[in-house]
Every structure is written in C-alpha cells, then in structure tokens.
C-alpha cells in the first residue's frame, strides 16, 4: 500500500481501501441510527413531549383517524 517513502524513514502499512470503507460505513450506520432515533424519540427522552403524542415530523391527525 506504500506509495513512496517518507523522508523520515517511517513507512507503515496503512489500512487498505476495504477496511477504510467498511469502518466509515459502520460508523456512519451507527451515527445515522442514533441521530434518526434522536429525531424520532429525542423529545420524549428529554420530557418535552409525551410518548402518546405521536411521532416527530407528521402533521396533526385527522379526526377520523
């Protein structure tokens, strides 16, 4: 994976493309899930809304619902 030597003489094996992509995918999945759930359930966790008051970004329900 080395693409030329560094003047200091320290040329480690850096991780390959697969590992970097996989690590970013995994980390992104985690943060996406946390932030998504934060949007859905955050107000309920912080006590700003009751759990029975419906989900975050929907409009008010119609009477017949």
């Amino acid at each position, binding site marked *: 994976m080395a693409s030329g030597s560094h003047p200091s003489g320290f040329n480690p094996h850096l991780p390959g493309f697969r590992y*970097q992509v996989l690590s970013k995918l995994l980390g992104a999945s985690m943060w996406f899930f946390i932030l998504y759930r934060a949007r859905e359930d955050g107000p309920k966790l912080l006590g700003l809304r009751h759990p029975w008051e419906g989900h975050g970004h929907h409009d008010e329900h119609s009477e017949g619902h």
Partner: protein
Amino acid sequence: MYLSILIFPLLASFVSGFLGRKIGITGSHILTCTCLTISSILATIAFYEVGICGSPVSIYLFSWIDSELMSISWEFLFDQLTVSMFIPVLYISTLIHIYTTSYLSEDPHNQRFFSYLSLFTFFMLLLVSGANYFVMFIGWEGIGVVSYLLINFYYTRIQANKAAILALTMNRVGDMGLSIGFFALFAFFGSLDYSTIFSLASYMNETALTIISLLLLMGAMAKSAQIPLHSWLPGSMEAPTPVSALLHAATLVTAGLYLLVRSSPILEYSPTALLIITLIGSTTAFFAATCGLVQNDLKRIIAFSTISQLGYMVMAVGLSQYNVALMHVVNHAFFKALLFLGAGAVIHSFADEQDIRKMGGLIKFLPFTYTTMLIGSLSLLATPWLTGFYSKDLIIELAFGQYAFSGIYAYILGSLTAGLTAFYSFRLISLVFLTVPNGIKKVYLNSHESNMAVVIPLAILALFSIFF
C-alpha cells in the same frame, strides 16, 4: 430439532478433540464452525417457535435416578427464557469460532482449543435447557471444568495455571452453597423439577425460601463474579482472547444470572433475599467500576467492566425486574464480546502488547477496529438509542422508582457507576487509538488490520450492538 441444538456442538467437540490428528487443523475449523452455525440456525427457529409464537417444548428422555423420594430424569425444557439464552450463546460462540480460526492460526493446538470451545458451548446449552436443577447443575459444573481447561490452555505458563486454579476453586466455593441449596430444595419440596418447585413455592415458609434463595445466590455470586467472589475474573484474562470474549463476557458469567432468573418464583417470596441481591449487585457494580479506572492492561479494564455490568444485572434481579435483567444479559453479551474481540485484534496487531500506556495513535492503523470498539464502548455507556441504553438506563430508572432504601442505594450507585464507566471506557479508547503514539516504532511499522475471519465477526457484533 431441539435436542440437535445441543448435539451439534457436542459432536463437533468430540470429533475435533479425539480425531483432531485425523481431520487436521482445517478440518477442525470447518467442522466446529459448521456445527455451530447449524446450531445457531436451529436456535433461531426455536426462538421463533417458542419465544415469538409462544409454544414451549418439554422433552423427557429417560429416568436417571429413581431412589425412593428422589426421582431425577433427563428432561429438557425449551421455554421463552431458554431460547432467549440460546440466541446470545450460540451466535457469539459461532462468531468466536470463526474469529479464532484466524486469531490462533499459528497455534499448534488448534484442535484442542476448538474442541474445548465447542464443549463449553454444549455445557452452556445444557445448563439453560435443563428442566430440573440437576441437569442444570451438570451444565454448571461442565462449564466450570471447561473454563479451567480454557484458561489453562497455555498450560506451560505458571500464571495461567494459577489463574485457572483460582477460577476453579472460587467457583467451587459458590458450588458448595449451590449444592446445599439443592439439598434444601429437595428437603422442602421433595423434588428438583422446576415445575414442582415453582408451583409449590407460594405455599412454603418464607424463612425456608429465604435460606434457599441465599444458598442459590451464593452459587450465582461465584459464577457471575459478584463481591466477594469476583477476583477470579480479572485473573482469567490469562486465557486467549476468544476465551475471554466467550466465557468471561457473554456466557459463563451469565450462568449465575440465568440461575437467579430461573429461580425467580422462589426469590419473589423472599423480600430479604431480594434486598441482599440488590445490595450486592449495586455494590459490585460500583466497586468494579472503581477498579477498572486504575487498570492499565487492556483486557483487565474490560474484565472489570464485565464485573460492573454483571452487578447491574444482579441489581435488576434484586429489584424483581427479571425481564430487564435478561435483556441486559443479552445486550451486554454482544457489546462486551465485541470489545474483547476488538481488544484481541489490537493486541494481535501490536506485537501482543496489552499495556494501554504503550499504545496510542492506532486510529490511523486500525480504523475498522477503532470503529467497532467505539461502537461497543458507546453501547456499554448506554448512549441513547444503542442497545445498551434500553436495558442499562431502564435498570437505573427502575431502581429510582423503587421508593425504598435499597432502591435509592441502587440508584445512586448505579448512576455513579455509569459515570465511572464512561470515564474508563473513553480512557481506553483515548489511550489506545487517539492519543500520541507511545509504543515502539518497529511495532507501528508492522501494525495492520486483521483478515476477514476477524473482520466479519466484529462487523456482525457491531451491528448487534447498534440494532439488536
């Protein structure tokens, strides 16, 4: 199908152990991993049938001891608790078998190791699927013996010898209390069958039930490393890392929790025993967290973290929240196994160095391992909406809602422990991955990520720590 869930690991163990020279290392790998995978698939089907569709299964094989009043049979019960334990045990065992094919690839005793791992899995499955305390005890002793064999895997090391003997003898102390508990159960109930005992528990004298509960607690304290029978767990880090991940994070240490949850119909009629369980659990959680703050060995930090989380689970049992305790058992199994396997990957890539003060700066070299350990740590911290949050936070809330001294004591210690957990977890992440490099230059030059046999189990466990 249900008995084959137990038979496949036993078969793999026997063939790998006795015919290891015939089938070779590769044959042992393929056989054990395949048998465990099949068992996992069958356990998933069993979980759907029993856990979700609600149809428990009871299998009577044959009578074993038939002596006047004592009648013990080989009988198995697959109810919701059993299949809930099957899932973490088998999934994690399968992933660890796959992980070990790479981790111990240079070890000449692979067949023996895989035989022990599969044998341990069999005994653990036997423990959770028994329909009476005697069959459970066979599994209980079996996992104790196999844990000795696994901790002492490097049997030429004196430290491994000492650690294995310490684990075995401390567990024997608990087994003594457990055995006397079984004597008491038989004396009062005339049987060791779960169905007989639990249906009669409500008619029994409270003092008798308290004594029985405390004796059963003694066994659980040793197996689940509660104070004062906890010191064998950090010592058992002498074992290879897959052993730490399987036994000392996910399965063996949860056997005590299983015993308490299974015995809940007895515990519920003894408020004294529940009080003592709550106090022991919360004290253990806090004490172990304070010990983890000052450790420098990577695996020992995670070991003390395990003791601390086991304290949370025992605390939940003491608060009569058995389902929450079981939920934390399952969640903890996944993220703690992830942390141990990640630690193994770090150790392997860093010339078997285990002191975190001699690491540092590994995020550039091990980005995938860093991500998985970060996920495991965040789940351990009960970061909102990861798996650990749902169980750990609920335990602390339930302690607050108890409105008794024991509940407030558990709440305060549980909250303090959560803070300490955050501290030592991020101390670990920081010193290993984020801070300036403190190790030898040559070690960094050779540091690299592990191959797919390590990456795939880490990825799967990470997903289970996020979404399970």
